[in-house]
């Protein structure tokens, strides 16, 4: 009897508390006024730093340039964040990142370092790991992501997230598995974490340029890099060291870099395109099987399309960015909105430097903001999972690439169901029996 009374009192207490919470939440909502919040629009919070909380230990998969960068970005995001494990297919990459961390007076214990193609499995089996950072060439992302979720880790992963539709479907399914387990996933589509992009997006979403009618997206830059084959490298070693030049590892530069712009257009349009048609070619590359340039028309339906183009050739006019046209104006998506006569309607206010002059960029780089977001989500319990959204943008790029390589019109339905899977059947060091012909669209003329 007494026990029951206590239970009843507890119950009442809980009830009052629940009531108070509802009222409190209501008041909070009311105080925000009519303006949509970041959360209500599915946007990440803009943070000055990750919140305090339980120590989070992370492991890095892929200790190349971006992987090492991501690891440093992670520990810079806030307090009590550590990199305690690393894996890479090559020992020299592991040595290099350990040296780098030593220079910050941080130690990555040798027992937590793994090499080889299955090193990631050993690393992810480490129980004290809370978070894994996935930064290998994208061909391996789907299997790494699945292993991470099976080992109950939160995930940060770089874009693109796969190179073919088989990988994309695997990744989306794993994203849903992560969601079911409450494991957070943040992706390296940094524009979605930039305050200037976010503020512009909110205004466009609020109708600042009316109904969207067309878009363009572009990423034109010098050629990136290539490795010359060394005498003692077998086929696989050479390709992985020179991964940025092989389609099965990289997905071509329409995935590697242009995906940022493609993702912004999908974001602003609020959907993925229904088909793609386009062209591309190769003039200047010296290794691998990829194109130098792509020109794709992505059809978003109802006459709305996005002209998407990218190039990696030295000594050409370079330009990166986006533009979205609406019935009442247009925007560069990053910081400015114009009316149809070209008058600036709104501009993002960048922070001021020590001398009081407006800076041209944000104080906190988006690369770090991404990790703040992840840590915030884990520590505050505000769930985030960007994997599917980034997978859909990656698939958009794959659809564009396929349209250029084949010369055909490629529909979303086709590419979503395609069994295209790139690369050798078995991933191991040694000789690789594959032909690397540069794709040629269509058929030659009859002579």
């Amino acid at each position, binding site marked *: 009897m007494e026990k029951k009374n206590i239970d009843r009192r507890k119950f009442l207490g809980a009830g009052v508390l629940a009531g108070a919470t509802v009222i409190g939440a209501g008041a909070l909502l009311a105080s925000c006024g009519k303006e949509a919040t970041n959360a209500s629009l599915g946007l990440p919070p803009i943070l000055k730093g990750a919140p305090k909380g339980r120590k989070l230990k992370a492991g890095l998969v892929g200790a190349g340039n971006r992987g090492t960068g991501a690891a440093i970005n992670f520990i810079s995001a806030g307090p009590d964040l550590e990199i305690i494990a690393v894996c890479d297919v090559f020992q020299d990459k592991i040595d290099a990142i350990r040296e780098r961390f030593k220079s910050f007076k941080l130690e990555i214990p040798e027992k937590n370092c793994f090499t080889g193609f299955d090193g990631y499995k050993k690393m992810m089996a480490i129980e004290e790991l809370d978070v894994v950072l996935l930064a290998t060439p994208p061909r391996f992302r789907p299997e790494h992501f699945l292993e991470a979720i099976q080992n109950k880790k939160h995930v940060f992963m770089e874009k693109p997230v796969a190179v073919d539709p088989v990988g994309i*479907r695997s990744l989306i*399914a*794993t994203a*849903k*598995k992560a969601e*079911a387990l409450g494991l957070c996933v943040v992706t390296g589509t940094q524009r979605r974490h930039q305050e200037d992009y976010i503020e512009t997006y909110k205004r466009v979403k609020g109708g600042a340029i009316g109904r969207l009618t067309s878009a363009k997206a572009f990423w034109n830059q010098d050629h990136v890099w290539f490795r010359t084959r060394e005498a003692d490298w077998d086929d696989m070693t050479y390709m992985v060291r020179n991964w940025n030049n092989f389609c099965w590892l990289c997905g071509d530069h329409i995935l590697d870099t242009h995906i940022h712009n493609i993702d912004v257009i999908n974001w602003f349009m609020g959907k993925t395109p229904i088909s793609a048609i386009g062209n591309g070619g190769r003039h200047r590359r010296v290794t691998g099987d990829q194109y130098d340039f792509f020109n794709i028309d992505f059809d978003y339906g109802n006459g709305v399309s996005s002209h998407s183009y990218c190039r990696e050739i030295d000594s050409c006019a370079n330009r990166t960015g986006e533009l979205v046209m609406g019935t009442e104006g247009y925007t560069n998506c990053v910081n400015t909105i114009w009316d149809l006569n070209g008058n600036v309607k709104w501009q993002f206010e960048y922070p001021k430097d020590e001398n009081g002059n407006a800076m041209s960029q944000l104080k906190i780089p988006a690369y770090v903001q991404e990790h703040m977001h992840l840590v915030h989500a884990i520590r505050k319990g505000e769930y985030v999972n960007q994997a599917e959204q980034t997978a859909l943008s990656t698939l958009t790029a794959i659809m564009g690439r396929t349209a250029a390589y084949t010369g055909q019109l490629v529909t979303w339905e086709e590419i979503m*169901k395609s*069994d295209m899977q790139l690369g050798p059947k078995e991933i191991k060091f040694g000789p690789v029996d594959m032909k690397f012909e540069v794709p040629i669209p269509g058929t030659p003329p009859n002579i």
Partner: protein
Amino acid sequence: MRFSNIFKGGKTKYWLVALGIFLCAIILGSVNQISNYTSSDKYCVSCHIHPVQDQNWRLSEHYNNKSGFVTHCVECHLPPKGHGYLPAKLKHGIKDVYGKLFKDSADFDWEAKKTLENAKKYVYEQSCIRCHENLFPVTLSVNGSNAHLQYVNTPQDQKPNCINCHLNVGHYDKSNLHAHNTNFGVTETLAKEVFTEPTKVEKFENFVEKVPETSLSFEMVAIPEGIFEMGSPEKEELRKPDEGPVRKVHLSKFFMGKAEVSWEEYLEFFKATASQGRKEAIINQPVTDAITGPTPPWGAPDQGWGKGTRPAITMSWKSASTYCLWLSKKTGKKYRLPTEAEWEYACRGGTKDPYFFPGSPKSFTSTGLFKKIFGADTTVINSFVAYKENSQSKTREPGSVKANQFGLKNMLGNVAEFCSDYYAPTAYKTASGDVLNNPAGPDSGQEHVIRGGSFKSDAKDVRSAARDFTKTKAWLMTDPQMPKSVWWYSDSNDVGFRVVCEMQ
């Protein structure tokens, strides 16, 4: 004011209220008790006497699993509370009581009740979802993931039912293989004479075709040249508008398979041409030398009903056409699927009535309340057609029915048959001229004509003029592969084909 007088004295009022509460509690309590009691497995099987099904349930994943959790009868066979639990309970209860009083459960056709179409009436989607909330458990396989991704991305009104794929999770069925059937057809060896030469056809008369390098032989029937009226007149009972207007058609003579292509016949083709992986499945051109045939099927294409002389089923229209190419190459003759006109001409055998035997659709059909209760007089139709009322929901061997005027068996019923024509509901309207000569249907289209109805059809749909068509998307709904098979339908088990051979 007057009512309050009744309660004057105060105490009586309290007593009455107390009594009311007490009675309410008793009634509510007993309703709850009754509801719980009548939802126990024990209570269920007191009316539902089906020892085989009880046993299958114990062998299924829903009983025999690692966690030791048992899913009880009503957890699948009634919707969850809040989703029409009580109305469904009442509906099933009345039916069950009626069945218990007036029927003998041993007479029930349990095989038929196991089929997907019937199972959907007794298994509630909401009940599946109530327990299986997470469609993406971490252990889900690649094929499972693909299938569930497709499920979540399908609009609500087109979503398949859970049991479209998971039919046997509640009652174990050992014949239901849930994997690529790589041994399919391989183990069937026939210790018979192997033919070296195809049959030579010099005269226009029935012949037995012999396929070289196999033990395969089958009967072909000579169908003479003639003119007939294709389609059904507007006064025909239970017809559909796509069967008209009636038109006059002239057909040259041809040979037609006496029966639908059997498993025995189809498996010879499968063994000779089956491709190992999915990549080999390239589009066939009649001119190519080597014919690439079907990939290994998923599960059991014969549905566990047996092969032999039962008609081959679940192969796609493309597979059936490729079979004809293979047969032509083997025999040096020209085999192909019949045109829709050839099919109807051969089926009618000179008759103009709804069936090639006496009787009317209205007297045979089992639709309508009266027929449902008292049954239809089906003596005549039973001897010619394997259809819904006599098939036990399976294909049958052709020996079980009588032939039509031309000597063809199972033109109506058993399995519906592919024709070479594209389907258009208005196909007969667009034709012009007095007498059409060997019409071959519309020039283009999406789906192909199927004719004759099947073992699942009501009598009204096995009329000589009744038309139907392939439904590619629906028939591949639960195929988990990406892209889906071009050789096998995952969700059609009552369509087959028969061949025609052109007179040369």
